[in-house]
């Protein structure tokens, strides 16, 4: 997984780079917008970690330029600007996610993986959580290497949850993803699917847990927190 780190503070850039490399990323580093543009033109990365305040301009301008050029590469904005009002600004301008400085490198890595787990992302083909593996191409699920037999609906639910690993997934998002327009699911249909999925995963010995967030939706984690 190739990552472009755009950060102007040398010690921070160095330390973040080392930490991300330890997490398994191949990291290119650009200290300013000019270097970033140069790298983007010759070696496009899979994901960009973008600091906003750069010596030769605003990171958001680069982001804006990328999106205007139709480039959909996932971008994680690292902002020191976070406040009551400007948190959303980066998202409005095409950032896929943002994280407030000072952020732990492990958090940055986790957010990048979440972005790469999206359909089409480099991690989007094989989704992994604990001992659970989901191959999106063959739509097969294994727990600790053994196949788990799941109905189509449950596989769909699991895919949505795994792609949004680390985030709560609103029920509406899951419903939109698993039902076609002419299917009219009953009010408890999703609950029923989720509880079947929970039972089957538990029976198969998968060490994952699907949490209900009442009033919102669901969230999948590795069993025992974390």
């Amino acid at each position, binding site marked *: 997984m190739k990552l472009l780190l755009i950060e102007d503070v040398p010690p*921070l850039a160095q330390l973040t780079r080392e930490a991300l490399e330890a997490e398994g990323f191949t990291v290119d580093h650009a200290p300013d917008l000019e270097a970033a543009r140069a790298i983007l033109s010759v070696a496009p990365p899979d994901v960009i970690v973008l600091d906003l305040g750069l010596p030769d301009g605003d990171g958001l301008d680069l982001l804006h330029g990328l999106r205007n050029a139709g480039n959909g590469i996932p971008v994680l904005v690292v902002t020191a600007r976070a406040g009551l009002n400007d948190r959303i600004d980066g998202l409005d301008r095409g950032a896929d996610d943002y994280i407030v400085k000072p952020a*732990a490198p492990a958090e940055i890595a986790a957010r990048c993986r979440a972005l790469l787990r999206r359909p089409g992302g480099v991690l989007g083909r094989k989704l992994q959580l604990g001992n659970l593996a989901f191959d999106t191409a063959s739509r097969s699920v294994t727990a600790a290497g053994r196949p788990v037999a799941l109905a189509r609906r449950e596989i769909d639910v699991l895919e949505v949850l795994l792609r949004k690993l680390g985030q709560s997934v609103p029920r509406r998002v899951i419903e939109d993803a698993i039902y076609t327009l002419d299917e009219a699911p009953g009010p408890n249909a999703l609950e029923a699917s989720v509880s079947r999925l929970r039972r089957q995963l538990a029976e198969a010995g998968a060490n994952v847990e699907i949490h209900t967030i009442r009033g919102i939706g669901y969230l999948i*984690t590795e069993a025992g927190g974390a």
Partner: protein
Amino acid sequence: MSRSLVTTLIRRLLLAGGLLTLLNIVFVTAYYSSDPEGLRREKVSHQIDRLAAALKAGPDGRLAFMPSERLAGTFTRYPDAYAFRIEDHAGAVLGEANASLVPADRWSVANGPDAWWSDVQVNGRSVLVGSRRANIAGEPVRIAFAAAGDPSNLLLFVYFDELFVHVIVSLLPFAICLMIVNAVTVRQSLRSLVHAADAARKAGPSHGIAALPTRGLPTEVLILVEAINDALRRLGEALEAERAFTAEAAHALRTPLAVLSARIETLPKSAEINAVRADITALRRLVNQLLSAAQADTLVVDPARQCDLVAVAGGVVSAMAPLAIREGRGLALEGGAPIMVRGDADGIAHALRNLIENALRFSPPGEEVLVRVAEPGVLMVLDRGPGIPDEQKPLVTKRFWRASASDLGGTGLGLAIVQRIAEAHGATLEIRDRHDGGAVIVLQFLPASAG
């Protein structure tokens, strides 16, 4: 001691009016003493007026002379001094008294001019005779009056009459008018001061320091208001500088903190490193909260801004649920159809994040923190923590306040920030006890339609 401008004005006007009256009296007195002849003629003319007023059309349609007792008395009491004679157009006498005072030919005035004066010497005395033609109830009449000396002080009447006409009749209505116009003008000119005062009362770090409105202010007051505006501007700059310093200081701490945080990650894992990492997390929180507090202080919410409380709560609960689950607690939202309130979505979200963080910190593992949105504009966070004792309820919204010195998890800023954000929204913050254990923080917002 302050005194109403209107009272002062009226007081001074009364004083000036009094002085003017005195001056007028002096003037009238001086005028007539320099012209005794004029005054005498005034006296005669005045008596003719009185006589004319006593002429009335009788029931048969003919004019009759019906003097008041007082008028008649003047002539019976002083037969040697006053006389009159009233004739109709045919020369018939309608009324007369003491006519012998003046030679008969002097009364014969039927063909004389409209008005005339004549000094007649009778028995060595000077008698002033005056005559006037008049038309009373359609009947032409001639009224003549004669006076030898002035035993009844008729002159004084004339004098007072003059004073009455010149001072009371002309000055008094004018003075009253002047006072009313003054009072109204002053009140109206100063009304715009009330608006300025309202604006001044609202000015503060939380509402922003806007210049006081100067529209419609009289120039005299404008000087003061402009000076106040100048002072307000300087205060605003100082406040802005202070706020900016807090924000910049918090901001500047972020990069070194990020470096420190990343450097720790490169060290071999150990219990000590974990402790340091926890300390850095706390420090990071404090820096973020300081910046939030600085921003919340100057948060001004446009009254026209509105947002859906349910949507805001949904976003925050959704974003914070992973954190809650990581910490072994639950997070849930209760709310239905959109509830529109007056407010800024980012600000409300920020307040709710702080409330949820607090609730999660005080809830025992396995418990659920509940966010409930209800009509009308109520946002509440319910936890299963130890609750907040009554004596601490007023304290928890103070900055850097902590329940105990050992409570290091929080910055002591969270509820203070929430309180400030609530104030900026015109919302209220209330702390209640949950009936089956725990605390409930209630934010009551203004409905979007209000105002």
